[in-house]
């Protein structure tokens, strides 16, 4: 960048350069700083976007637990037993360079699992679980809503774990958001940032 236009960026008057436009737009940041049962990111899906990325960072459970997710409809989590997903986890226990891999699936459950196999460590110093959920066409009521995710977290005993998950809700419906929570445990902290990709 050079010239008078960029030089004036940020000034309150005069010739001011406009902010750069972007097709990747931050829609919401939610921060959990005291213990809660679940966190929802809701009401940010609009017709401007078909594709969303939700990043979650340093989500720490009250006690070691797996990380689960539900779709929301009309602002509330859908608790019907129509969730289907497939998960793959690999784990390094530190005793060798070999990894342990585990495969799971859920069919007709009341939740998606973002992490499976071992539980996520509850020690804050390990950083909880960090990852990303991608959501596709959430407002399209004519199709089954889908997601895919990847996340990392130290295991309950300090192992290194990586989890890949994807799935859909087995009913055509629009969704208004997502609810994330640790299976059987509260969430003590975490940051959630939602981005939309413009059509």
């Amino acid at each position: 960048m050079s010239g008078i236009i960029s030089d004036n960026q940020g000034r309150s008057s005069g010739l001011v350069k406009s902010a750069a436009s972007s097709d990747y737009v931050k829609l919401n940041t939610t921060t959990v700083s005291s213990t809660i049962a679940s966190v929802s990111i809701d009401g940010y899906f609009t017709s401007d976007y078909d594709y969303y990325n939700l990043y979650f960072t340093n989500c720490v459970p009250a006690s070691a637990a797996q990380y689960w997710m539900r779709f929301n409809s009309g602002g509330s989590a859908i608790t019907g037993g129509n969730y289907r997903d497939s998960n793959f986890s690999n784990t390094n226990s530190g005793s060798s360079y070999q990894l342990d891999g585990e495969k799971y699936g859920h069919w007709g459950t009341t939740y998606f699992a973002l992490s499976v196999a071992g539980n996520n460590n509850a020690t804050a110093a390990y950083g909880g679980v960090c990852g990303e959920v991608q959501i596709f066409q959430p407002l399209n009521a004519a199709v089954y809503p889908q997601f895919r995710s990847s996340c990392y977290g130290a295991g309950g005993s300090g192992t290194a774990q990586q989890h890949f998950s994807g799935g859909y809700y087995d009913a055509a419906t629009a969704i208004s958001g997502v609810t994330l929570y640790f299976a059987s445990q509260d969430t003590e902290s975490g940051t959630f940032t939602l981005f939309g990709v413009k059509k």
Partner: protein
Amino acid sequence: MTRYKQVNNVRSPVTAEEEAQLEKDKETFLAIEQAKADAKVAQDALKASTKAKLIAGEALTEAEADTIVI
């Protein structure tokens, strides 16, 4: 003790219905974990008996054969 949820950046108490769902989720999770643990114990035992029989030259059951046939 009152439990809370957070929607975007707004924290509020969970409803009675949500509290019931949380308890149900907990029971589901514990049942799944127990089933996984039981299945692992059973599979490990099957593999151990398969190995012992192979070493001893004894006939395997169908379930034991399944542990070594891919």
